[in-house]
C-alpha cells in the first residue's frame, strides 16, 4: 500500500519535474506583440483577411507580412489600435459590404426548367446549368446565406439580399456563390449596377426583364467616358467604385432598370 502510493507519487513528481524543466528550457519565445495584436482583433475568426483566423493574421502582421487594415470586421478602430501596438501608420479602412449583383427576381426572369434537387446553388448550377434562364444571375438557393456568419443574407423572391447593417464584409459569400455575382463594395457607395450578365442586349432581353443591355446610357448621363464613373466589360456596365457616381437620377434613367439606389435590404430594427 505504502509502496503503491510512493510509486504513483514518484511518477507524478518525475512527470511534473520533466514538464517544469521542458517548460523552462524548451519554451519557444514568441513575440509578445502577437498576443497584444490578437487581443486587439475582433476574434471572430471570419477569415475575411485571407489568413487562418485572427491569430494567423496577428502573426502575419507582427512578421510584417500582412498589410494593416485588412480586417474588415474590426474596421478603423482596430487598425488604429494595431498601428499603435506595432508603431505603424494607421491604414485607412473603408468599410466594405457584400452586394448581390442581380435584380432578376422570379417575376422578371424566365425559368427554363423545374429544379427539384437539394436547396443549394452549387448543385442547382451543376444540374444542366440551373433552372434560371439567365446563366449569370442569382439562383436564389441561398449558398451565400448558408455561409454568412452574421445571418445578414436573406432570400426574397428568388434573390439574395444583404442586410447592410449586419454585413461585416468577410467575403465568405463571395466565394460561396457559384455564379460569382457577389462583390464587396464600399459601404458608402449608393449607386449600383445590379446585373452580372455580359452578353449582348437582345440575348439578355430574352431571359430577363431587368438585365443590363450595355447601352452606355448611364455612362452618358454621368458625364461621358471621361468622367470615369462606369466601366464596361462586354455588354455589362459596372460602377467604378474608385470614383462612384452620386446622381440618383441615374437609376430612373436606366432603360433596363438595373441601376439601383442603395439596394441593400434593411431590417425594421
Amino acid at each position, binding site marked *: 500500500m505504502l509502496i503503491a502510493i510512493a510509486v504513483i507519487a514518484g511518477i507524478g513528481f518525475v512527470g511534473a519535474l520533466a514538464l517544469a524543466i521542458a517548460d523552462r528550457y524548451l*519554451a519557444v519565445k514568441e513575440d509578445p506583440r502577437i498576443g497584444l495584436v490578437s487581443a486587439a482583433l475582433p476574434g471572430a475568426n471570419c477569415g475575411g483577411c485571407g489568413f487562418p483566423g485572427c491569430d494567423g493574421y496577428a502573426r502575419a502582421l507582427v512578421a510584417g507580412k500582412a498589410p494593416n487594415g485588412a480586417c474588415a470586421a474590426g474596421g478603423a478602430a482596430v487598425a488604429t489600435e494595431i498601428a499603435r501596438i506595432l508603431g505603424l501608420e494607421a491604414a485607412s479602412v473603408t468599410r466594405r459590404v457584400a452586394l448581390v449583383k442581380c435584380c432578376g427576381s422570379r417575376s422578371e426572369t424566365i425559368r427554363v426548367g423545374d429544379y427539384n434537387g437539394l436547396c443549394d446553388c452549387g448543385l442547382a448550377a451543376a444540374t444542366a446549368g440551373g433552372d434560371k434562364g439567365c446563366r449569370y444571375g442569382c439562383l436564389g438557393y441561398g449558398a451565400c446565406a448558408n455561409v454568412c456568419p452574421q445571418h445578414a443574407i436573406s432570400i426574397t423572391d428568388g434573390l439574395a439580399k444583404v442586410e447592410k447593417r449586419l454585413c461585416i464584409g468577410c467575403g465568405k459569400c463571395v466565394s460561396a456563390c457559384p455564379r460569382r455575382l457577389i462583390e464587396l463594395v464600399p459601404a458608402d457607395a449608393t449607386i449600383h449596377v445590379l446585373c452580372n450578365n455580359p452578353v449582348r442586349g437582345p440575348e439578355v432581353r430574352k431571359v430577363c426583364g431587368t438585365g443590363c443591355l450595355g447601352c452606355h446610357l448611364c455612362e452618358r448621363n454621368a458625364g461621358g467616358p471621361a468622367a470615369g464613373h462606369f466601366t464596361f466589360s462586354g455588354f455589362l456596365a459596372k460602377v467604378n467604385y474608385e470614383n462612384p457616381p452620386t446622381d440618383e437620377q441615374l437609376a430612373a434613367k436606366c432603360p433596363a432598370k438595373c441601376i439601383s439606389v442603395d439596394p441593400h435590404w434593411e431590417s425594421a430594427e
Partner: protein
Amino acid sequence: MSYYLMILVGAVLVNNFVLSRFLGCCPFLGVSKRTETALGMSGAVVFVMTVAAAVTWCVDRWLLQPNGLGYVHTLAFILVIAALVQFIDIAMKRFLPALHAALGIFLPLITTNCAVLGAAEINCKQGSGFFESVFFSFSAALGFGFALLVFSGLREKLAHANPPACFRGVAVALVAGGLLSLAFMGFSGLVKLPY
C-alpha cells in the same frame, strides 16, 4: 512476419478500436466533420499511441511489476500518458514546428483519450513483449485513423442529405456510425486473432 501481419489486420479491420471495441468514440464523433481535421487527428493519435505504448510498457515491466503493483497500472498509465503528451507538445513546438502546426491542436485532446489508455491496458493484460506492444498500438491507431477517415467521408456526404428534422445533426451521424460498425462486423473471423 505473418504474426505481425495478423496483429495489423486484427487491429485495423477485425477488432477495430472504434467500431468493435468502442474505444475513442469521442474524437470519432467530435472531429469527423471534415476530412482534413480527421486526417490531422489520425496522425496525432498514431504518433501518441505508439510512443505511449513504448513508455507504458517500460513503466509496467520495470517499475510496477517488480514491486508487485500490477493492480495500480491504470492509475500509473493515466499519469504517465498525460505527462508524456504535454511533454511531446512542448518538445514538438520547439524542435518540429511544422509538425506541431499540423498536429498541435489535436495533442491536448488526446491527453486523456481512452483509445490511448485502452491500448496500454490491452498490452498490459496480454503481457506481450516490447516490439509486439508497440506494433499492436501502432496498428490499433492506424485502425482508429482508418475508421475516422471513412466516417468523415460519410459525414461530408451526409451534410448534403436531407434527413427528417428529428434525425438532423448528431442523430443521423450516430446512425451512420452504427451502420459503419455493423459493416466492420463482417470482418470477424478473417484472421485467427493473437489479441
